[in-house]
């Protein structure tokens, strides 16, 4: 398919970009295709009569152009700034220094800076690298585990998000909006846990069965909206939202049933998964990172292969780009819709099994799935609905989560700030025109900043 925006490289005036965005929004059918092959359109030099600019010139041009990378980075910056403002206005002590800002501005600036910089430093130390732990290791005060602990936490939080992010992204590419990753992960977590403590199997096989049970659970929960969409035309957004809650209530009911509930407990918690069904830890027992992250990378590769190299992936993208054209070309749209949702369900179900077979939890509780399904939507959007992009986005979100924990315990900044940051990042990413306007960015060479692909009800 040709580039729907022939004038994309044209003058970077505001109206031009508006029209462009408009065209993108209207040409729903073409948008998926734009997302599919952006790299090619960039890599292809095209017949340019003028002499090629130097590499450095190109780099500088692109640095301040509204391309994917710049917009993502600036969205992050904007989110961090808004987060800082929230921190300041919610701290009565710091806020009080602003009452006399005209007479002694240094007070306000200093106290704000201390508050914000400490919080964000803890966010960084908790998720990536803590210099104190490193010097402690050099001095022999602590082991190497302490140095890797932040990374380990980040990877632990990222693993399930990769799966749910892939689930949402895969459905997006097929033109469906899977809001049901939460519900699919919930059923996945149930099945994985049941297989984990009910089946007496040898190690290895037990783990495999438990992981597959999780995938099966997700597949079932994805199949329902898929078949309803294909057979009755029922909108998947509505159905997946509803199924999320059905799954949640089913989980809360199941936990307290005989044979599932921990016999030694009166509160809502199930028996623990057998150790033979738990994902092995990668760096010893002190660090929480487990084999789930390896599975996540494998899944990313598999989804990338499925989308870009397989017949099914081609059909899926074709249906996502234009169902009518796909049908004319002989692709069964109904079959593809069902398959998309089943695959999306499998991925989300795997994310669910990660939550109970990994080191996050080993028993079912009402909140065992946390928010991975909803976070998966954000991850998919941030990753521009591309498999490897989703992996990176999940790592970022995992880092925010891990760092947020440290920020909460060291700086007393509520973990909710992380939710705010995540939501803000995605809001800015979803509206590149806004970021572009705020930072006065140049228009991008390829118009590929629209991430949203879903249609109305």
């Amino acid at each position, binding site marked *: 398919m040709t580039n729907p925006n022939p004038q994309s490289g044209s003058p970077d005036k505001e109206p031009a970009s508006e029209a462009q965005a408009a065209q993108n929004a209207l040409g729903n059918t073409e948008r998926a295709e734009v997302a599919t092959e952006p790299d090619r359109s960039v890599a292809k030099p095209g017949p340019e009569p003028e002499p090629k600019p130097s590499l450095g010139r190109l780099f500088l041009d692109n640095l301040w152009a509204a391309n994917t990378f710049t917009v993502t980075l600036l969205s992050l910056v904007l989110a961090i700034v808004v987060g800082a403002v929230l921190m300041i206005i919610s701290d009565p002590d710091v806020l009080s220094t602003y009452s006399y800002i005209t007479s002694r501005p240094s007070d306000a600036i200093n106290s704000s800076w201390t508050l914000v910089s400490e919080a964000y430093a803890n966010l960084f130390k908790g998720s990536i690298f803590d210099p104190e732990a490193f010097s402690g290791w050099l001095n022999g005060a602590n082991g190497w585990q302490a140095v890797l602990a932040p990374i380990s936490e980040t990877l632990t939080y990222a693993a399930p998000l990769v799966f749910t992010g892939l689930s949402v992204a895969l459905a997006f590419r097929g033109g469906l909006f899977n809001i049901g990753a939460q519900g699919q992960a919930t059923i996945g977590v149930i099945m994985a846990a049941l297989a984990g403590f009910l089946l007496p199997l040898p190690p290895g096989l037990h783990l495999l069965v438990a992981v597959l049970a999780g995938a099966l659970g997700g597949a079932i929960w994805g199949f329902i909206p898929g078949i309803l969409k294909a057979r009755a035309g029922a909108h998947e957004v509505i159905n997946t939202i*509803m199924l999320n809650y059905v799954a949640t209530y089913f989980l809360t009911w199941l936990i307290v049933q005989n044979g599932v509930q921990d016999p030694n407990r009166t509160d809502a918690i199930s028996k623990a998964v057998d150790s033979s069904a738990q994902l092995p830890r990668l760096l010893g027992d002190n660090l929480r990172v487990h084999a789930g992250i390896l599975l996540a990378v494998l899944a990313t590769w598999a989804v990338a292969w499925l989308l870009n190299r397989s017949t099914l992936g081609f059909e899926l993208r074709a249906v996502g780009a234009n169902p009518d054209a796909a049908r004319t070309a002989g692709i069964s749209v109904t079959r593809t819709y069902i398959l998309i949702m089943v695959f999306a369900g499998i991925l989300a179900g795997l994310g669910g099994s990660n939550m109970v077979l990994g080191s996050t939890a080993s028993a079912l509780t009402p909140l065992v799935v946390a928010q991975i399904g909803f976070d998966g939507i*954000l991850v998919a959007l941030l990753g521009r609905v591309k498999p490897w992009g989703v992996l990176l986005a999940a790592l970022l979100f995992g880092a925010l989560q891990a760092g947020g924990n440290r920020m909460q315990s060291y700086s007393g900044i509520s973990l909710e700030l992380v939710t705010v940051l995540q*939501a803000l990042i995605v809001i800015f990413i979803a509206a590149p025109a806004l970021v572009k306007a705020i930072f006065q960015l140049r228009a991008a060479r390829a118009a590929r900043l629209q991430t949203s692909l879903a249609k*109305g009800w």
Partner: protein
Amino acid sequence: MSTMAVPDIAVAPVDEGFWTRSRKVGLTLLALGLLSAVLFGALATDQQARFTLSDDAAGTALEINGTIGAILFGIITIAAGAALLAGVPKRWFLPVLGVGLVAFVLSFLCWQVSAAPTGQNFMPLVNIIRGTFILALPLIFGALAGVLCERSGVVNVAIEGQLLMGAFSGALFGSISGSVWVGLVAAAIGGAFISLLLAVFAIRYLVDQVVMGIVLNLLAVGVTGFLYERLMQTDAAKYNSAPRFSNWEIPLLKDIPVLGPALFRGNIFLYLGLLLVLVIHIGLFRTRWGLRTRSVGEHPIAADTLGVKVLRVRYRNVLLAGVVAGIGGASYTLALYSFTKNMIGGKGFIALAALIFGRWNPTGALLAALFFGFADQLATYLGAINSVIPSQFLAMLPYLATILAVAGLVGRVRAPAADGKPYIKG
């Protein structure tokens, strides 16, 4: 229903052949009736099932023997199903269906009430009705917010966020100012703030509306949760002790048996909610504003051609929706509870379900919200009498009902044609 319906398969052959929708529904009703007459009848006990017309066991009551009641109402359901199966005039379809469903519920109640532990074989109707309305209240406001938004063509998945923000700012500013009215206005502004974001991003920046709604919900959860921990938890007396609206008794109406004490001794939000349903219904179908709103939601290009300012109508409606939902959020914090983290807890999504189940119609949304509220209240009641029915399954009911409705099994629902599609003036 869907903009992406798949035309290559028959979409439920609705009006073809013998099996019309009415007959299918009739068959389902017949099966339900058989189930209730046989199963509920067998499980019910010989205790009297008492439906008292008061708050407790005392006072006059409607009584019926449990087994007889369960079977009797089951037979009524069977009769209704049989009538639909035999074929009734189209205008009789809904009333007959209604009678069948109500009888089914009554049969179920006869079984449950008679099988309750001895001494608890009564159902206080005043309590149940009042609880139904209280639980339905945020759903009514939320669904009305959805109606306002979606009728003008903007999908509103952010109802949850609007309710939450309304509840939060109502509690915060109500506490700081010490005035319920300031709280109420602040709540409306809080809801409108989320709406403003939705409107700007959906209308100006053409962000996908479902995506925006989901993200705004998370943003609202994050911002209110963050400020709750920072402000309200540290100094609850100052920031989280909003004054509450006292109950207003309406003269005359409050003396109606059952309904009087249940409905007309409530707080301002109940009256406001019911009034809003009426106002929005009349406004939508009887005024110029309503015609414009609907035309913008169904066919913006045509509306634009006729001189309607499409984007302005959408902005206004989305903001109004935020105001309505914000007040709905305040019905929690300015009447019932103090603010807690994520206190809406999915009610916004049930409101969305009520909106869809009510077919994007204010009155329909009210009925759907009441049905969902009743299911919720029933779950509480059954929990109190140690019923064998798990409350979680009753809690699933709204969601399952919506799935059935959307799948076309209970009658087709159709969204406004331009719902979710940004309009670009050409």
